[in-house]
């Protein structure tokens, strides 16, 4: 009798309050790396408290997880089982709680755009067809990154430098310094793109030094007035265009 009661208590515990432990484990090992431990985003966009780019129904979420997002860094989790997918989606919903998508970005994107132009962001970055390819393309940056990540990138650009945007300075035999974004590198050679958007290519034993910059080549914008910063963020957050398809272009297989 006691045994029966105990067993039915166990069964009840297993069924009744939704247990998110499984979903949490799946989320932490597969998703948190980009979307953050609490789903507030990181390198990847926030999954809670905002409108999702690729649809917000459970079915949309499942489709994106299984199929990935072509042309972005979101991979396809093809081997995930349907029940794992269910538990994962349930956990993402659970993390979201009652967060409202409306409270996304405070600030004036139109004014932010003027600030973008005034601070000459386009001398390094590109939106659509305009600007420079020296720094990361910002055409869909609002969809790809969380607001907190973008804020950090403006105030402390060295906090997280993507491998494909690491800075290198080559000191030539004549003592000339050439700084640029590392496009490719191996034991014997290094290829850069400099601020004038030109490729610069070197054989290591022909130069006197190859220095890997610990800091981002992007300046910090901590001196912007808080209101300007907020507006600039609002503008960046509004950038959700599509980068022209036509195939997946990688700078170099070496950089990963």
């Amino acid at each position, binding site marked *: 009798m006691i045994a029966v009661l105990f067993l039915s208590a166990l069964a009840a515990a297993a069924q009744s309050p939704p247990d998110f432990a499984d979903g*949490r484990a799946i989320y932490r090992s597969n998703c948190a790396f980009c979307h953050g431990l609490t789903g507030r985003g990181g390198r990847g966009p926030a999954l809670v408290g905002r409108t999702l780019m690729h649809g917000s129904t459970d079915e949309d979420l499942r489709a994106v997880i299984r199929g990935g997002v072509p042309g972005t860094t979101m991979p396809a989790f093809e081997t995930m089982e349907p029940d794992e997918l269910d538990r994962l989606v349930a956990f993402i919903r659970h993390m979201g709680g009652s967060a409202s998508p409306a409270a996304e970005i405070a600030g004036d994107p139109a004014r932010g755009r003027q600030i973008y132009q005034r601070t000459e962001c386009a001398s390094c970055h590109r939106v659509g067809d305009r600007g420079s390819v020296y720094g990361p393309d910002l055409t869909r940056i609002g969809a790809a990154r969380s607001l907190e990540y973008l804020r950090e990138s403006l105030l402390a650009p060295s906090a*997280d430098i993507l491998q494909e945007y690491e800075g290198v300075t080559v000191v030539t035999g004549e003592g000339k310094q050439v700084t640029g974004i590392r496009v490719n590198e*191996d034991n014997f050679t290094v290829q850069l793109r400099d601020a004038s958007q030109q490729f610069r290519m070197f054989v290591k034993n022909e130069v006197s030094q190859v220095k890997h910059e610990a800091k981002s080549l992007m300046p910090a914008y901590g001196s912007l007035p808080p209101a300007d910063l907020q507006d600039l963020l609002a503008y960046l957050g509004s950038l959700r265009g599509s980068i022209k398809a036509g195939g997946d272009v990688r700078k170099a297989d070496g950089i990963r």
Partner: protein
Amino acid sequence: MRRARFALLLALAAALPAQVSYERLVNARREPQNWLTYWGDYTAIRHRDLSQVHTGNVKDLRMDWMFQTGVPGAFQTVPLVVNGIMYFTAAGGQAFALDARTGRQLWHYKHAFPPGRRAGSVNRGFAILGDRLFMVTPDCNVVALETLTGRLAWQTEIVPYKKGTYYATVAPLAVKDKIIVGISGGEEGTRGFIDAYNAATGERAWRFWTVPAKGEPGGETWLGDSWMRGGGPAWLTGSFDPALNTLYWGIGNPGPDLYGGDRLGDNLYTDSLVALDPDSGKLKWHFQFTPHDTHDWDACQTLMLLDLNWQGRPRKLVVQANRNAFFYVLDRETGEFLMGKPFARQTWAKGLDAKGRPIVLPNTEPSPEGTRLCPGLAGATNWMAPSYNPQTGLFYLPVREQCDIYYSSPPKYIEGKPYWGSVFRGVTDEKEWGLLKALDPLTGETRWDFRYHRAPWAGTLSTAGGLVFAGDEDGYLMAFDARSGKDLWKFYTGNRLVSSPITYEVNGRQYITMPSGAALLTFALPEGAQARQ
């Protein structure tokens, strides 16, 4: 008279194919012009007494020919060369024979897959015995091919093929009259084994289960029925000592890889060296490098047999640079642990105890939150071959410096699905790099090293020309001075390198061959240059 002459001709013709006898395999190092086994010979030292290309002229080495297989997928083969003919396998159950001097094709074999069967996965090469070549297929067969024609002599199913479970990649090892193969599938919830097949008939002679069943010796090292899906693949070729009549084989990881909660215990014989009787498949002794592994640090790497003066007396040794970042020296007659020293950065063990068992540091298990640990899952080294030069007494080793974050959660076993127990991610706070290291195998100390920009997946070759050839992850095939480590020559092959170079000689000319991409690249000194040496 005419009839007698005809009979003589017939007898000659029948004797024509190169007979690679067992005796030739035992004495393979006495024919440096050939490359007769996956590792070059039974001891796996990957050193050749060829010195036409040497430290003084290697700068003139240039590509002599290139053969395009047209086969996509990682090209991990190590070719065999016998009397001027090169035999090699490619991915997808394909194989080729070439004129080793010119690269011109002699035959091309394609395994017949049953309809609907996936033809992927890598293959590491052939074994040769008599006038037959032996390879495994991705869908778990051993096939024997005629050296002369590439025609199928026999085909034996290792296990019934089921997608997402067992598969096969190993280069078989010919020992006496048997063909030894190990199985793959350590991430698929399988139970590993090593098989021996009769070279003449294809009949299975014995099977050694790398994971003992409940009730068998070692079975007590597995919780419950976890042994049934315990892993322990045997996907890299072993080595063999004819005098001791002992086969040495490295065993892979336990499964699920990253979650150990359901398989408490040491999990024998995963991550171990097993010493087997090649006639019966019976276990002589074992040594486990990483008990109860939860980081996929299998022990399949090269088991090199060295006869060295160990602390004042000659001793028969087996050495291994293990994926877990320690370099081990064991007595290969008894399995006694003699030495273990880290050769790469490792953050998981305080050291090894007197018996060679690791003293594991706390908080090194994979966890739901992720645990940062070095080396990464791919290990401090892997299938890429080390080599040993008896003249320098140095062991040349490709080293991977790369750390991972290991995640863990209890997996559910579903047949045909990966059985990992969660995932791993490369760390983002530092870049990986690699090294070519020259170790003193008697002390484990580094004599020289050369830094690679990235962690390598290609191995090494040592020659009597005082050279070490090695490949890197960016696609350079390089030659180094074996004594000083100075880089003397390089060639950019245009694709990452995932195999190990070989050398051979035809008509008095020395060649070096390396697979890259879908091509086989062969190098030599310019024609006529050797006459001037």
